[in-house]
């Protein structure tokens, strides 16, 4: 009887020590699920979800404070990917956060720009180049199309333009036979 108690207590003690050691030795820094959610989000950093960027939104989803349908740039595909990752049911995009739009880039009308630097301060990815009282310009390759530069502009000289299709970016479309045969540039017009 006593032997059994001693043996079991010893076993429990050893197991406890092992577990305690493992908890310290293999401690996971940060929350891995946040990284996985962040990898799915489009990194537009637009804040339409109500959080200050994609990472804060990912943290909120992981903490169950935000729903998975608050990201308009990620769209339906993004919601489906999030639902798959988190084992939830996909749901339609919350219209309060905005609607899914085709990808655009910001373009500064350089004749009207007064060089106020307000858009530079608003850009979440530092994609606007310029200095005080000098013309600003958008680095199109770096622009995420978040539209955050539009409201601060005092002269409304920033516009969102659709990304033009080139031979390099053209894709074969989903094969549907009923489609009429016409060039890609006319089809998108």
């Amino acid at each position: 009887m006593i032997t059994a108690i001693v043996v079991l207590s010893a076993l429990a003690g050893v197991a406890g020590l092992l577990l305690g050691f493992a908890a310290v030795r293999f401690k996971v820094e940060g929350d891995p699920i946040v990284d996985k959610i962040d990898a799915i989000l489009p990194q537009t950093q637009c804040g339409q979800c109500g959080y200050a960027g994609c990472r804060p939104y990912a943290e909120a989803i992981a903490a169950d404070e935000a729903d998975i349908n608050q990201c308009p740039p990620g769209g339906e595909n993004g919601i489906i990917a999030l639902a798959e990752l988190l084992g939830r049911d996909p749901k339609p995009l919350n219209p309060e956060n905005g609607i899914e739009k085709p990808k655009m880039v910001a373009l500064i009308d350089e004749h009207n720009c007064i060089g106020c630097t307000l858009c530079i301060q608003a850009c979440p990815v530092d994609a606007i180049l310029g200095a005080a009282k000098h013309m600003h310009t958008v680095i199109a390759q770096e622009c995420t199309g978040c539209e955050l530069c539009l409201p601060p502009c005092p002269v409304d000289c920033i516009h969102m333009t659709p990304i033009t299709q080139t031979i390099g970016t053209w894709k074969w479309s989903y094969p549907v036979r009923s489609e009429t045969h016409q060039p890609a540039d006319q089809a998108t017009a």
Partner: protein
Amino acid sequence: MSALFSFHGGLKTTRHKTESNQQPILVNPLPPQLTVPLRQHIGAIAKPLVQVGDRVLKGQMIAQADGYISAAVHAPSSGVVTAMELRPVPHPSGLSDECIVIETDGEERWIERQPLDYRQLHPSEVRGALRSAGVVGLGGAVFPSAVKLNLEGQGGQLDTLILNGAECEPWISCDDRIMRERADEIVAGLHIMVHLLQPREVLIGIEDDKVEAIAAMREACAGTNYQVRAIPTLYPSGSVKQLIKLLTGKEIPVDGLPADIGVQCFNVATAQTVHRAIDLGEPVLSRVVTVTGHVARPANVEVLLGTPFSALIAFCGGYRDGVERLIMGGPMMGFALYDDEVPVTKATNCILAAGAGIGELTPEQPQMPCIRCGACVEACPANLLPQQLYWHARAKEFDKAQDYHLFSCIECGCCSYVCPSHIPLVQFYRYAKNEIWAQEKEKQKAELARQRHQARLDRLEREQKERDAKLRQKAPRQAASTAVTPEADKLPIEAAVARAKPHRIAAPADASPASVAADDDRSEPNS
């Protein structure tokens, strides 16, 4: 002759070579205008060297190779550059691309041609000459040949050099005619390739229905150790992977290149341009194009790059009644064009005016559901499971499609051809490949945006810290100055005057310390 190997699947197609291969290669007259695209090769678009209004000579480089995988572009004839702009090019999208438009003057004045003796040159100099001569693979893939002729960093030793004269597409016969008429030039080009690559053996693969071409090539190769091999007429024997399997029995690993297994493969027309570029100093200015199908006089035509398709069709007697589609390339792997005003490029091996009533080019039939008959599996020369690929591509399950080796698909079209339900299988695979590439690009862009956003947050935090540090540095001094003059916050000037008064009476020169303290206070709201 050693025994041939075979590849899985393939098709016995009805041959339509005799329509165009019964007469010698014709030469298309000089058109009044040439539209030369800057992207006639795989890789980076060429960088223009001329401006609108410049006079150019025949063979003058008008755009240079930009980067390692790129090729130069030359003026196909002498004349004046009248425009440099976006013009429609032969591409399945129907989109426009950068072109240089040359108004020809009819004089055909050449630049000074400099033939090179490749035996006296270092291989890298020969490759440099090929690069600046714009030599690319003329079989249709237009990959810069200088890159393929460089084995450094790939083991350096080549077992087999293969010259591809299979030409398995059922309607194309340009390589057939080149081999019949210009076998000596092909072999001269082959000598240069052998000099660069030093292969253990050289094999020339030609489908056994091209009897005259095989005879001509055998005659030209007499006295050399180059072996001309007749291969069975079975589509797609002219595809690199299948031809290598047929001739050597070796298979290219998944995601591998022919050079990985010690084999390199070139088209016969490419060998001819290699000869012209080195031995004659002539860059690639023209190519032989098969014009066939519903045209009055089908033929093989030597045509300057940049010539509009419409001029070529007119030279061949114009369209016959019943043309439905204009296809560039063969019926199996080619694509339909939107317009016949696009220019001939280095990739244009065939222009096929397709319509009902000729061969098996029947109009597109309504698509029916897959009945899981497995005919596509039997036909697939790449040993894939086309049906599985189809299900996954259709359902947009791209990960699963990749598990079934979607990227090993050579898009030969055998599966679509045999499909009794007329499912456009290859189109589904192209769609899935394009989507995967686009998603990959999107991911890279998102990752870049994430990094830039993080860098910005770090910068803002750093700047905030620096500001705080500055404020803290200033704080003790402020405390000292406010202790001396507590009323200074409210009325700094008055205070300064009041403080200055007794000093002025006692010693007028001592006013400066108080005014410094007042200055300090005034600068505070600004910081």
